[in-house]
């Protein structure tokens, strides 16, 4: 809010400067074109220059001095013009005093009182104190107008245009100020909408990025297709493509962030079940699922783990991914999982007696292991370590802090 008030002040100041300077220039132009003598113009010039200077400063700073200076200098210029017209400086300017004000001079004075001076009014609407200044300044200006146009036929017109100029500019200031605050309110509600849109987008991206194993197999199939399916039977490739397309469709149609990982659980690519709040159930469901898929998992140690739901989700997902890797790549049908659960850490040891592999030989950027297991755990401060060698089985330690 503070920001927008600052912006508003600047907008008003710049508007006041623009209106004021334009009027000052027009007033001077009218004098030049209206047949003033050169000395008379030269006499008026410093006043106009000072007035313009005050107006420029008025557009740059917030201080109330400059609008006031603008009004005072403007009134001084008006009075000077009236004196010149009355013949006060005849000896020097060559202007003889006339009873009736020359029209160009009167016009210039009108432009000053209703434009150049009144421009300050734009800035005098933003606080109560300034409004008091505004009322005072308007009163003084009107008095000066009445005095300098006293006895002239143009008095009525001059007074009217001064009143019109001041009220118009006060209204303009108020409208600009109200309009900007109104727009700012609307902008901030757009901002709120945008924030929730961003969160939704973030969640959706995470959901899709979280479906890592699914993407692993999709990428593999795409790569096979890119190599025109060389070395794979067409039927197998077609079946694989069909499976993947179905998984992607499930991903697309499922609504909840995690359901995709549990959705295709009956398939080849199922990972762990969507985590439920009950940890005993979750471990059991992981076991059952892999049993269905043909991997016998023996459980040791704690039969349940107590973790906050969010952490439990990820822990089980990582565990599921480990077992999935065992199922797919180890070449054995049995795995052991040992869960230990102490005050600070929940630990799972996944062991198999399969073919094993050389951890150092795995490229660092593999999606499967790094993204689906390590990333999931490190995101919540845990870690995963792999111990394996070619031909001597694999042990993975998963750790999650409480």
């Amino acid at each position, binding site marked *: 809010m503070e*920001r927008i008030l600052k*912006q508003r002040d600047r*907008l008003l100041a710049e508007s006041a400067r*623009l*209106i004021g300077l*334009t009027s000052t220039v*027009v007033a001077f*132009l*009218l004098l030049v074109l*209206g047949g003033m003598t050169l000395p008379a113009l030269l006499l008026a010039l410093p006043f106009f220059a000072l007035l313009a200077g005050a107006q420029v400063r008025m557009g740059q700073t917030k201080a109330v001095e400059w609008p006031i200076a603008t009004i005072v200098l403007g009134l001084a210029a008006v009075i000077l013009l009236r004196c010149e017209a009355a013949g006060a400086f005849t000896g020097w300017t060559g202007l003889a005093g006339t009873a009736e004000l020359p*029209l*160009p001079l009167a016009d210039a004075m009108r432009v000053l009182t209703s434009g150049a001076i009144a421009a300050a009014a734009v800035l005098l609407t933003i606080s109560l104190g300034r409004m008091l200044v505004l009322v005072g300044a308007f009163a003084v200006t009107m008095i000066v107008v009445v005095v300098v146009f006293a006895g002239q036929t143009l008095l009525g017109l001059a007074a009217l245009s001064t009143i*019109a100029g001041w009220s118009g500019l006060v*209204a303009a200031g108020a409208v*600009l100020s*109200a*309009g*900007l605050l109104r*727009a700012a309110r609307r*902008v901030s509600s757009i*901002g709120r909408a945008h924030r929730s*849109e961003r969160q939704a*987008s*973030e969640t*959706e*991206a995470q959901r*899709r*990025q979280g479906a890592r194993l699914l993407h692993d197999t*999709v*990428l593999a*199939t*795409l*790569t096979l*297709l*890119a190599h*025109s*399916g060389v070395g794979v039977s*067409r039927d197998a*490739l*077609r079946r694989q*493509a*069909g499976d*993947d397309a179905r998984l*992607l469709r499930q*991903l*697309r149609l499922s609504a909840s962030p995690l359901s995709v990982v549990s959705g295709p659980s009956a398939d080849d690519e199922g990972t762990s079940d969507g985590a439920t709040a009950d940890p005993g159930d979750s471990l059991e469901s992981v076991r059952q699922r892999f049993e269905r898929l043909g991997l016998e998992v023996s459980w040791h140690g704690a039969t349940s783990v107590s973790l906050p739901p969010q952490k439990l989700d990820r822990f089980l997902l990582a565990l599921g991914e480990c077992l999935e890797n065992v199922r*797919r*790549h180890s070449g054995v049908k049995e795995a052991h999982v040992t869960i230990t659960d102490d005050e600070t850490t929940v630990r799972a040891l*996944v062991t198999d007696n399969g073919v*094993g*592999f050389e951890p150092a030989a795995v490229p660092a*950027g*593999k*999606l*499967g*292991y790094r*993204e689906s297991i390590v*990333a999931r755990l*490190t995101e*919540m401060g845990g870690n995963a370590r792999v111990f394996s060698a070619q031909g001597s089985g694999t042990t993975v330690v998963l750790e999650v802090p409480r």
Partner: protein
Amino acid sequence: MTVAPEQDVAVASILAPRRAHRTATADRDDVVRRLPALRLPRAEAGPRPARTSLGTGFLGIAATIMAVLLLCFDIGRFAFEWRSYPAPGLAALAWLLLAGLLVGLAFASRSAGDTLSPWIGGALVGGLGGVVALDALAVWGGGDLARDLTAAPATALVLLAMVGVRSSRSVILAAGGLGLVLAVLVLASWAGSPVPEGGLESAVAMIGRAVLPPVIAALIVHSFRRIVGRELERVLVQSTVSAPRFAVGMLASEELARLDLAAEQLLDSVATGRTRLPLNPASAQAAAELATELRLHLIEGRRQTWLYHAISESELLGRAVTLSDPESLAGLLDPKQRDALLQAVWLMLGDTPERSRRSATRVAIEITVGPAKPVEGKAKTMRVPIVIQTTGVARSRVDPATWDAMRKVGRHIDSQRGGSLCVEIDCVVEKPAER
């Protein structure tokens, strides 16, 4: 246990430098163009176009009311001088047409909402030309158009009423055109006879009174729109401060969804036999590119922070700010620090007028985050130095609020480097969980 061995695609490209969203969008178009056979579904909603007219409808109504008041004043003056007209009927017709145009404008802008179509705007300006012609015909015999024209200079009031619903540029152009036409008419009416007494002065007064109000109003509305546009951009970018340490941008999920859908369609068509195996070279190439894109997008966002997205999503920041944050440390800043950092950068940029940003010495800011240093005796926090090196920002011109904002980010030291401000902020953040 073994790690997925069927994965054999090189990942070097994934580790290639991050690409801004704009490039990502361009790439998407590129893929679509190159793979017509695949019929990649297009992302439906592009980035939201900036509503530059936000809030100016209100100003437009105010301007219209003001125009109506001034018009009443001018009509009063015209009625007062009715008898001195050589052809008052024509002038009255001109006034009627003018009033009709103003009413038409009011209706059109009510129903058009925020912006008036160029056609209606053009038609209105054409109508104003008719008003000027009628009024000039009405007083042509009088000898001095500068004194006698009434409806013609008042046409500028319709332009004034238009500032809320048309671009400032078009209003200014129309007002300039009106000024030119008036000047030509006045000069033509003087042709062949000496310039009447005070004629020049009254001509300038008449034209100035006509042209200046819409021009000034248009300029003010222009600044208004700029402020609101800037505010809108700031608010949109600010939504990044609540993002997690690593975040995907606004377009990422859309992109990912689109790629997933493309893959689904390709695989489906293979499965159902619509696409014959083996694939023809073009389709195989398409599948390979799809896989690469998909891989890229699955990894994307893992190392990008809110600051990266804030900068790449904002037109203003994106143009002027470069970020170097190899360790993604900006993501560790808490929301308050992020907000303050954004605000400080925003203030440094925002204070320079539009003009100097376009000129040769354009304002630029380079933000370097890291490398992190430990804090002695504290295991849970660490220090992340942030260096903000500016080009073309003088210390004396910086908004004082910038320093308040900096203070919220951390302790800072400022200096001048090459005539421009350089700030080093020592930012204390919570250590992330071990990676």
